[in-house]
């Protein structure tokens, strides 16, 4: 699915240069569920953004579904992204002015799908995420857990091959976290590839593999589940 080769990302401000990723080479196979862990500031989110084609690396290569995307311009990346990748963020990132239904519908609009088909897809995914009864509500009227379920619904409504989740449970209490993780786990079982950044060892347990990042480097690639504290 994805293969990176010596991925490096350097951020520059006026005087300071920070290396967020330092020669990261990883491979993620079709249908895998991978967690990315590491202390704050280790480069996890940067890696996720690059894998999600939201950002481009300073150096190195990324092979995404057979495309060498590192040199792609934004338009090409957008096109590749909108049909293949779904995103879930720690802070949900729903559009406050849109209802639950409209938020979930959004990616389909950009795919230029007909209205009746959009409706079918959105209704189906809302049912699946058990938030159909809330579809006319606005994000601010929902609890954090519900908001994140809407965000997951939005991420999967296009049936993406890859879901990228950036600390999806970071703003949730334990009960809601478990709910969301169960959803992701279910999607994984249906064959979706998932890459998730997390701080939580409990959440990481749901995945098959953990990539540890530290100061921009991959430190261990473990096929086993590990326990922290």
């Amino acid at each position: 699915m994805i293969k990176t080769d010596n991925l490096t990302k350097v951020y520059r401000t006026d005087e300071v240069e920070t290396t967020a990723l330092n020669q990261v080479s990883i491979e993620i196979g079709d249908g895998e569920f991978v967690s990315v862990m590491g202390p704050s500031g280790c480069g996890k989110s940067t890696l996720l953004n690059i894998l999600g084609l939201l950002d481009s690396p300073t150096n190195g290569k990324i092979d995404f579904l057979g495309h060498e995307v590192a040199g792609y311009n934004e338009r090409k990346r957008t096109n590749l992204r909108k049909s293949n990748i779904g995103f879930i963020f720690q802070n949900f990132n729903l559009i406050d002015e849109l209802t639950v239904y409209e938020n979930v519908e959004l990616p389909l609009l950009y795919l230029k799908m007909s209205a009746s088909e959009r409706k079918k897809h959105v209704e189906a995914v809302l049912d699946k995420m058990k938030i159909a009864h809330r579809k006319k509500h606005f994000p601010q009227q929902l609890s954090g857990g519900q908001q994140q379920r809407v965000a997951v619904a939005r991420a999967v409504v296009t049936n993406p091959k890859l879901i990228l989740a950036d600390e999806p449970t970071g703003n949730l209490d334990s009960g809601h976290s478990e709910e969301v993780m169960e959803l992701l786990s279910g999607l994984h079982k249906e064959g979706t590839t998932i890459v998730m950044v997390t701080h939580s060892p409990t959440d990481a347990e749901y995945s098959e593999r953990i990539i540890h990042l530290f100061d921009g480097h991959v430190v261990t690639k473990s096929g086993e589940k590990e326990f922290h504290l």
Partner: protein
Amino acid sequence: MLKNYLIVAFRNLKRNKFYSVINILGLAIGLTCMILIMLYVNDELSYDKHHLNHERVYRLESHFTIQDKDDYFALNSLPFAQAMKDEYPEVEEIVRFREKANTMFKLGEKQFFENAIFFADSTVFKVFTYPFIYGDPATALTKPRTIVITKSMSERFFGSANPIGEELETGSRQKLTVTGVIEDLPKNSHVLFNALISMKTLEAFYGPERFDTGNPGNFWNIGYMAFMMVKEGTDPQIFYDRFPDFYDKYMRAVGDAINSSYELMLTPLADIHLHSRLDWDLPTGNIVYVRIFSIVGLFLLIIACINYMNMATARATRRAREVGIRKAVGGGRGSLVRQFLGESVLMALISLVLAIILAELLIPIFSQMTDKQITFNPFERPMLSLAIVGLTLFVGLVAGSYPAFYLSAFKPVQVLKASALSTRRGSTLRKLLVFMQFTISVVMIIGTLIVIGQINYLKTKPLGYAKDNIVYFEVRDTVISRQIPNLKEEFKNNPNILGTGASNSVPGEETAKLVIFVESEDGYKEEPMNLIWVDNDYLPLLEYQLVEGRYFDEEMKTDMEQGILINETFAREYNWMDDPLGKKISFGRGDDGSYEIELSVIGVLKDFNYRTLHNNIEPLAILLGGEGAAMGNLSRMYVKISAENTAETIQYMKEAWEKHIKEYPFQFKFLEDSLNTLYESERRLGLIFSYLAFLCILIACMGLLGLSVFITEQRTKEIGIRKVMGAEVGNIFILLVKGFMTLVSVSTLVAMPIAWVALDKWLQNFAYQVEINWLWLIAGAGIAILIAFLTIALQALRAARSNPVSALQYE
């Protein structure tokens, strides 16, 4: 997709009610002003353009040079028209107008005073376009004692009936036959009348001598407004080129005799209203005011537009997250650009709709304020409407382009992770804008104060005579003048009537001007002179002050033929100050070359303002008029009444009048009122200025409010940090208010000298100017600063009291 954009756009408007209202309303007000000012300017520029031949019509005007003194008059003489036609084959038609004082017309029981009555040649309907309802334009004014009336006058007398052939009687029992009814004149006409009486009527009254082109004296006697229509393709320059021959043939004889010369001036009909500034003209507009209003209107619009863009931009940065999300879920840059541009245009269009509604609502008030007949139907004025819509779209697109292109270029990563975006960029521009807005506003406020100050000054300035409690009425004709002695007798019986007097004119009106001959070391010298005729009582009645000599005296029988009073300026000009009494003045030369009608100076009056305060005091001579006098029809009767029981006194006068005069109703005016109307255009300017100033400061404050709320929002984090560091509400309040108030204060400092210079220039229009007072400048600045402070203070206080945690929590 469009639906989605619209949903987001409207929910955004709803959610950010404050910004939306400020934004849409601000732009709407700006657009409303622009629409109104465009209509005003359009109206000013449209004067007389409804006459189909207006491009070929010129007014014949006069430039006299008498003893090296120049006079420019909008009028011309009676025989000029015929002579022009004789001399210039390029002339197609000429029409002369002569204004008649307001006249009473009677039809059976109905009687109305009609103002704006003119005598006119029958060619008037060839030169000008006046659509006829009844009658034949070709023959309507060809005979004596015929009259063409407007529709509304016709309705007053005849209702909806066709009045052709009916007779109207004037107050002085002259019968006039109605030969035509025309549509009411559009207000944007220079010559505005309710009725035209044929010039032949006047000719029959005067006799043909006055029209004789063979008598050069007739050419020097001006009092008619003449319009000439030239043949197609005629260059008006030829009239100037060939005028010396004309002058030699018809006018030189008199010119040489009085050491004077005359030049013809031509003004195209459509230019008269705005570009002609001549004496003895009908009321005109002023291109300067048109320019001032255009500029101020444009400023208002620019302020409103930039405010709009500014706020739209500021607000858009709050939507950075939405941009990030849309990008993450597959939105391309193009779709985001379209979305933001569309939203912005939509908002601008909402403003436009609001502006059109506002404009329609305000037009009646605005028409009244500007004394214009303004209507606005967007469909009737496609060019104007297109311009307004085009401008609105332009504002929408420009306002939307910054967020559209700037925000759509955001990397989603940046905006999704870090919620704090530095939008400090462009803050210099915003500050500059606030600065500009307040500078303009303060100039406007100070301007308003000074205009009002000047008007008050004009109204209260001592004029050199006692204008209080003076009532005057018109002595229209012999019907009234014969009863004057009876009226005077009646008035004597009322202790509240303190005295009477008569004059040929009302202070403030233009005076008659004649060439007289003044004694000097080298004999008599010609001098164009302002003249007033009075009776024996008039001067003491209005308390004109003597510096030398005496008033006219009933006992001195010689005064009527030999007495003359002059003003100080006259005496000064001729170096008579030491010994003015007994100096000689003559009114003309007999055929034998000797000076007839010699008068000697019996008194010198302290200078007083006999014209409006736009003008300096010029030399003036005062003669006895009335019965037995060679000239000077004492057409105004003045009555001084006591300040108490005014209403009863006037009622008494009315009853006395009605006892003796049946033909006319009693009509009177207070002198003070008629003096105040002299400054009507200034009063109107002051009024419009104050409205514009109000709008300026309103829009500026709306911008300031929006901007300060925005900047405060941006500084939320900083406020939070400062509070955590120990800042108290007061510290934060000062922090937030200081920046803006400094800006506003600096702009007032800049505005003060600008206002000073600009208003000083305006004051140059007046011979008498109020002194620009520092207090006005400070008051203007103070008002602006206070309003600005109130605008900012409330929300700064709110921000200062907010909980710091909420600002820092979601980092």
